[in-house]
């Protein structure tokens, strides 16, 4: 999570991006700074590397096109995560429509993708956890991932998802219970 130093650094990135001569260099620096965090945030949603790469590229292209208009009313980090989350959720919606599946069938599709991953082992806790997370509804999945893996404060998460802090806390609480129930085989 960005601390004060990080925020200054983000501000410098945004300011230098607006300078034509420094644009490419500042953008490269921005990509290097946030690529892994955004990558894993998206991959936890869509599972496969190729799809993650496509979505991530789209995210950074949007950043390139819109960073000039970014007014820094929120953290750069929050803004980037918001774009990443929306792109991933949009991709999942399109995927569902293309395959014409119901919500319950959706769990099976992503379960299949999970099973197809390299080194997949349902006996290992990290794979089991991923299976458990895939049973969550999409938005709840995002809440769980942002809190559990990215350790995002609820206030920041509220900026990313446009949901109140109280609702996010409740959602995370329910997500934890479901994941736990899945892992313990209840």
């Amino acid at each position, binding site marked *: 999570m960005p601390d004060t130093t990080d925020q200054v650094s983000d501000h410098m990135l945004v300011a230098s991006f607006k300078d034509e001569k420094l644009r490419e260099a500042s953008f490269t620096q921005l990509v290097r700074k946030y690529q892994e965090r955004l990558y894993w945030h998206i*991959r936890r949603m869509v599972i496969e590397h190729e799809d993650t790469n496509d979505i991530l590229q789209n995210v950074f292209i949007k950043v390139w096109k819109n960073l000039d208009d970014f007014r820094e009313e929120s953290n750069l980090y929050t803004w980037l995560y918001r774009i990443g989350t929306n792109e991933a959720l949009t991709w999942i919606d399109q995927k569902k429509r293309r395959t014409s599946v119901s919500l319950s069938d959706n769990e099976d599709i992503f379960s299949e993708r999970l099973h197809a991953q390299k080194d997949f082992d349902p006996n290992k806790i*990290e794979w089991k956890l991923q299976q458990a997370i895939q049973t969550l509804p999409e938005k709840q999945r995002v809440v769980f991932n942002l809190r559990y893996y990215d350790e995002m404060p609820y206030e920041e998460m509220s900026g990313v998802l446009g949901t109140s802090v109280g609702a996010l806390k409740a959602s995370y609480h329910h997500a934890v219970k479901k994941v736990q129930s899945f892992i*313990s085989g209840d």
Partner: protein
Amino acid sequence: MNKRNDISIELRDMNSVLADMPRTMPYHVPAGYFDQLPDNVHATIKNINEAENVPAWSKKMPYSVPVNYFNELTGNIIAGAFTENADLPEQLPYTVPAGYFENLPAQILAAAKAESPAKKETKVIPLQKRHIFRQMRWLAAAVLILGIGIGSYSIINRGQSSTENMLASVPANDIQDYLQHTDRIDVDRVLSTDINNLQLDNKDIIQYLNETGWD
């Protein structure tokens, strides 16, 4: 990290086993992926910019169109549609049940009666009687016209003959006396008089003309 501890504490507060689980991602990432990602993103952006910056090629079509083509197009299409239909058979392909038209009037009448049974029956005048009635009407009209004609003629003739009858009734001697005592017109005097010096009123002229029958 404080945040990690916060998350762990939160999970412990929920009595969740997740508090002690390793938070590692089991997914595989291709080697060198993150090292190459910034350059790949730049290349993608460059391709997009090139695609958006299409050269300002001329949008003018090099093909020629016959003169008045578009003006006549609508008419040609419509004419073509009629021409296409010219070979179509005039007869409809539908079949009609046998005896349909013969029975139709009776059916319609029956249906009409069934719908309004309380209606009075329309008076049906036999064709022959209708014919005589029509003849009598024409006769009455002829008599009327004749009567008007004869009456008008007699009124006109009465007016005309009365004047002649009146003249005929005047004795010849009276007519002769009248002519003798009337001042003779001095023709020479009339001819020598300059018409322009005559002080005549228009009314007098008009009256004279009316009396002598000039229009």
